[in-house]
């Protein structure tokens, strides 16, 4: 892109920014960066330009880049939740493509800034991730890259198991046990208290707990959803650098989590606005055709998955039709995909979009349900906990032997058992002692265990 083309793009962005503001979009200051394809695909694979090095990103990069080289898929842009907001544009985009993309990313930026799920996200994450990457590479230097890589492999295997709830009080690591504490010590030690737990003591009806002798107290006191944090704080075998890496990777997951939870809304919102904004521009007939083509390819439906752009767009349009434009701004502020679908996906929309539930029967994938409420509920189920199985730590002193007991909160969808057996060793590697996972297979409770050498499987 030469100087005059950049000037032209700047003029277009200026105009689009004005229109977006007039529509009431409220976004961060923008930084547009024009990059070659392999850079865009690197960012796409890593989720962030400054992220740490790991072979799994290399694998993703290779796959994406190959699809690009073969002309199978193309990323036109990438936008980062940050303030200022970074948007990366693919070098070689035409001016009209860039116009659409700018309109699209402005709406994303508005969404990042205003949706409540993003309210706790670190807007300087680019810098934090860069610091993380540096720290990890320093650890590689100190402890050997293979050792660090093996550790990161294990952490990544459980990285989704964090507690992303908005109102969770931030726990400190002050309750960290010394890694040599024996089990008896651990049990008698004071367990981490809730930050406001002392308020209870002001209640006249509150009964002070009389410390009774060796009654086994559950540990953790309540089932713990944040497996990463718990292991980071309580694993008896981790070294400080390992706890540091866990805490950094957990921060990254918490940063990405709102994007997982609002995929349909966020893409729908951006598509809704790029269409509205483009309508305000004076396009030549050629540009108008190119825009329609591009727009059509973005919102194309698919047999096997839902196109989040299309579904989100349709729902927003429907909300606007029924309640007016102000309402969509409210929805973009307070909802996430689950409530968005549950509240606003209507019978009419399910039918109009021809949505269905399908399932494997024998060796065929068949449509099994078209009733709108079932379809809606299925969409909602699939998004519970970001689409990941909900697993909690039930007992960190199982068998009174410091073993870790995980429980899958089974809700009619079975786990991939091969993956269970391949993932447990990672948990064991992090915890240092035998680990167990309870789940349900064919309506029976099953306990999978791994002790560092062998797998065990038994019915409960």
């Amino acid at each position: 892109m030469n100087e005059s083309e950049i000037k032209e793009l700047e003029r277009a962005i200026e105009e689009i920014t004005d229109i977006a503001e007039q529509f009431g979009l409220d976004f961060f200051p923008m930084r547009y960066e024009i990059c070659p394809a392999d850079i865009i695909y690197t960012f796409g694979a890593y989720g962030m330009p400054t992220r740490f090095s790991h072979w799994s990103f290399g694998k993703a990069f290779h796959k994406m880049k190959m699809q690009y080289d073969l002309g199978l898929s193309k990323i036109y842009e990438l936008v980062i939740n940050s303030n200022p907001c970074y948007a990366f544009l693919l070098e070689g985009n035409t001016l009209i493509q860039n116009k659409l993309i700018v309109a699209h990313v402005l709406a994303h930026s508005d969404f990042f800034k205003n949706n409540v799920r993003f309210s706790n996200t670190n807007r300087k994450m680019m810098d934090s991730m860069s610091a993380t990457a540096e720290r990890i590479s320093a650890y590689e230097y100190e402890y050997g890259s293979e050792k660090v890589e093996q550790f990161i492999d294990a952490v990544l295997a459980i990285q989704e198991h964090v507690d992303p709830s908005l109102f969770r009080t931030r726990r400190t690591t002050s309750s960290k046990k010394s890694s040599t504490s024996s089990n008896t010590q651990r049990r008698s030690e004071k367990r981490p208290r809730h930050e406001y737990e002392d308020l209870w003591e002001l209640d006249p009806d509150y009964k002070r707990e009389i410390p009774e002798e060796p009654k086994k107290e559950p540990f953790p006191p309540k089932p713990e959803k944040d497996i990463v944090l718990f292991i980071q704080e309580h694993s008896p075998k981790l070294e400080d650098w390992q706890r540091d890496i866990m805490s950094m990777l957990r921060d990254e997951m918490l940063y990405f989590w709102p994007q997982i939870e609002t995929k349909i809304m966020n893409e729908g919102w951006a598509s809704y606005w790029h269409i509205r904004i483009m309508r305000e521009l004076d396009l030549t007939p050629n540009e108008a055709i190119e825009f329609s083509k591009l727009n059509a390819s973005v919102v194309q439906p698919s047999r096997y998955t839902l196109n989040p752009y299309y579904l989100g767009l349709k729902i927003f349009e429907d909300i606007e039709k029924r309640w007016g434009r102000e309402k969509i701004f409210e929805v973009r502020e307070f909802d996430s995909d689950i409530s968005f679908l549950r509240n606003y996906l209507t019978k009419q929309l399910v039918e109009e979009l021809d949505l269905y539930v399908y399932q494997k029967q024998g060796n065929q994938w068949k449509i099994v349900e078209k009733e709108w409420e079932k379809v809606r509920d299925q969409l909602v189920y699939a998004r519970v906990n970001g689409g990941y199985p909900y697993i909690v730590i039930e007992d960190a002193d199982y068998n009174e032997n410091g073993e870790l007991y995980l429980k899958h909160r089974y809700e009619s969808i079975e786990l991939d058992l091969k993956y269970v057996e391949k993932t447990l060793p990672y948990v064991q590697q992090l915890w240092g002692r035998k680990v167990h996972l309870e789940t349900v297979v064919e309506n029976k409770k099953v306990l999978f265990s791994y002790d560092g050498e062998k797998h065990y499987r038994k019915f409960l």
Partner: protein
Amino acid sequence: MRDRSFIVSKEDWSLHRKGYHDQTRHKEKVKEAVKKNLPDLLTDESIIMSDGRKVVKVPIRSLDEYRFRYNFNKSKHVGQGDGKSKVGDVIGQEPTPGAGKGSGAGDMPGEDYYEAEIDLEDLETMLFEDLELPRLKPKQKDQMKVRSIEFNDIRKTGIMSNIDKKRTILQNLRRNALAGKPGIYGISPDDLRFKTWEEKEQPHSNAVVIAMMDTSGSMGHFEKYVARSFFFWMTRFLRQKYENVEIVFIAHHTEAKIVTEEQFFNKGESGGTICSSAYRKAIELIHDRYPPAYYNIYPFHFSDGDNLTSDNERCVKLIHELLSLSNIFGYGEVNQYNRSSTLMSAYRHIRDPRFRYTIIREKGEVYKALKTFFSPEEAEVSP
């Protein structure tokens, strides 16, 4: 004019190589995984049926990023139709097992295994690292050695017909670049590079594999596949050691005959089994076409062990005769269900360092079989 709230920039990204760097690490991991998965890969259909292709694609399972996830095949999913979908419509089909490859691949959602491309030669190198021809009774040495020529060095002088063009040009490039004017021009005698050779004495260079297999009714698809995989690798292994490797196929049930490879692996016959018929045929063949003085002879027999009991003693006798003519004799019993076979119990008593046997219960054990047959002798065995 109000302050602009945006900046457009274009930086030089050419030093940003992270994606490629981690991709390289991933490739290394694939190679490690291949090595770890050798026993499984060995019998992968895409290799055994590769028909001379040099690069094959094989599924590598250990490079998945494992995590707790739902069973895709047991879950319900939501999709979108073209407006006319109805309950009962089939929107996808999984290829039925055994129906062959290529049909409808990529049509299905889910299954995300990693396909690695492997150079067969690389695979061979890894695989054969551990294999060795067993140390055998030396034969008449002089007769058995051949001289072979190996181009394995580069020198500045040599005869023109052996000039190494690529290296010569590289040298020229290098010299010109050093002089400050890169390019290929003005090749001087100084640039010339020649290939030179060494004469190597190689032990005798003809080998014949006598592949014998039970094709009676009791040998099913699995048994034949295992045998096929084994012969595939064994032939390749021997080709690295000998200049010429022939392979002859003898199929037998109650009687034996020499057949083509095609017939050997695909034709099934019914009826009982008399293994001695194959051994007799092999001995006949050796006397007719493959004198032991000129050939290294490798008879291998695959069976499910379901031999006619009265024939077992004869088999043992014939094996001794075959052993006197061969380098080694291998017997592989393909026995999925781990039954004890009468043939095996007869063979267990054969005491000869050149006689080796193994039992294969699953595909992954083909590698074990190769290692059993082609490992150096463990201990000195007195003749």
